[in-house]
């Protein structure tokens, strides 16, 4: 059944995206030619580097509706999350020690919260509904006199749920509590405006929108007090030490500029492919469950559980057919449990083990989706024919 024709279809764009040629071109001058240190103002290549970082900062700020001096470049999305949480927690130690977050955050937030608990902070991990949505009411009722920070992601990376950030930020504001959002999966994929969302801090990462890996940014609203995560020199206005990674900062900004310019076109395209995938899978494959919402879902994300089979074996057969995807199964992640997100939306373990995430980008084609819709049903059937759990179903039908 498996045809070994050469295919090279990348459907793991929520994990990372391809660096676009335009971005690479913008970065290249800052490796071998304009290699100056952005803090060295007394000669030209230093000033060039400084100008490039300043221009990048302005671009990122304008994409987010922020001021340039509210943008701080970091070494990753993960660092931005760590900084937001630890920096706000420690800067407000005198005020209180309680943090509210959700149970479906990225590990960058969850494991930082777990560490903060060891440092004496209290963390509330809010549950989500069956589509992965945090209810604003649950946020409000979790607030107590010690609450200093609320952190809820804008878009979930596994099941694409878009959270009611605006509603939550209004609650935070009315209680004078700082609000951070991990917008790593949102920025470059949907309109993200910090003043419209009403957030105080926002994390983003370059490699999720065709920029480079290993560079991110944290938006910190002017007036918000935050402790440093990285101590050292005076870079990033004394808030984040380390010689600026000029090429990567330039690349992140260029990629974001393009993503914002093409946002409408790209989200329309991705939504169309997303619908085609969801409809096609539901039409062709019985006993499947769409994980995450049908509405209010990131246009890049599709996540299904296929009953009676396991995710890693789906991934391996997809890979043999030239399709790259991911799964929340325990075996696929090399951890002992299936994805915390799938468990949090109430999936039993055996259904969480059978999950498959297919994430598209503006570079995905209709033909890619057609091919997946041709191959995936065969793979699922092949594994079901091998599954003792499916045996009863198969016999019942015969």
């Amino acid at each position, binding site marked *: 059944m498996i045809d070994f024709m050469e295919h090279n279809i990348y459907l793991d764009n929520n994990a990372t995206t391809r660096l676009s040629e335009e971005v690479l071109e913008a970065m290249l001058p800052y490796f071998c030619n304009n290699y100056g240190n952005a803090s060295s103002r007394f000669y030209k290549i230093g000033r060039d580097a400084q100008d490039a970082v300043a221009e990048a900062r302005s671009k990122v700020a304008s994409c987010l509706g922020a001021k340039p001096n509210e943008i701080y470049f970091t070494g990753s999305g993960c660092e931005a999350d760590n900084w937001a949480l630890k920096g706000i927690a420690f800067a407000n130690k005198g005020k209180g020690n309680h943090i509210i977050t959700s149970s479906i955050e990225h590990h960058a937030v969850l494991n930082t919260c777990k560490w903060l608990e060891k440092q004496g902070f209290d963390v509330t991990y809010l549950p989500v509904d069956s589509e992965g949505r945090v209810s604003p009411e649950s946020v409000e009722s979790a607030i107590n006199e010690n609450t200093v920070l609320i952190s809820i992601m804008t878009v979930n990376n596994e099941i694409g749920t878009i959270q009611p950030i605006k509603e939550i930020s209004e609650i935070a504001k009315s209680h004078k509590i700082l609000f951070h959002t991990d917008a790593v999966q949102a920025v470059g994929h949907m309109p993200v405006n910090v003043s419209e969302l009403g957030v105080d801090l926002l994390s983003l990462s370059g490699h999720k929108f065709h920029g480079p890996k290993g560079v991110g940014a944290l938006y910190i609203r002017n007036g918000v007090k935050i402790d440093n995560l990285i101590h050292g020199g005076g870079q990033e206005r004394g808030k984040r030490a380390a010689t600026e990674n000029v090429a990567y900062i330039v690349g992140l900004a260029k990629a974001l500029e393009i993503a914002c310019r093409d946002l409408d076109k790209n989200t329309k395209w991705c939504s169309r492919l997303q619908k085609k995938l969801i409809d096609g899978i539901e039409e062709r494959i019985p006993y499947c469950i769409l994980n995450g919402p049908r509405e209010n879902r990131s246009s890049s994300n599709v996540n299904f559980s296929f009953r009676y089979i396991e995710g890693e074996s789906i991934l391996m057969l997809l890979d*043999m057919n030239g399709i790259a995807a991911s799964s929340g199964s325990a*075996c*696929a992640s090399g951890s*002992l449990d*299936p994805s915390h997100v799938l468990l949090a939306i109430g999936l039993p373990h*055996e259904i969480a083990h059978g999950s498959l995430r297919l994430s598209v980008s503006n570079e995905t084609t209709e033909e890619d989706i057609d091919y997946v819709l041709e191959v995936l049903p065969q793979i699922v059937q092949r594994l079901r024919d091998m*599954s003792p*759990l499916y045996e009863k179903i198969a016999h019942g039908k015969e």
Partner: protein
Amino acid sequence: MYSEKVMDHFANPRNVGEIEGANAVGEVGNAKCGDIMKIYMDIEDDIIKDVKFKTFGCGAAIATSSMATEMVKGKTVKEALELTNKAVMEALDGLPPEKIHCSVLAEEAIRSAIEDYNKRKGIESEDSSGCGFCCKKCYKNED
């Protein structure tokens, strides 16, 4: 991450299926763990004439199921009981460390099928090993 042998047994698993009228059937693991193996044997005069399996699980679970069935086919019941997951792993040129627990399944499934065979013959044997909780996943998830 997997050896060529593992990939071969995963892509072209040997002995997949059921045996109608099998006189030894064993099933181990549970869906919570993420791996379940069911094994069917046709045993005649204590010799495993035919063996088939069905597995719900990852690449390592499927490959070890396939290899283990190959290794016991044609063997005596006594020989089959001596098969260890270590031997199956070695035959597959090894498994990544986090996948070792998946390979225990095949050894347990074979033992469970032979217990079933003995039971049908009226021979009592040791307690069924069942899932064995070898991977400790179930313990961890009990909260």
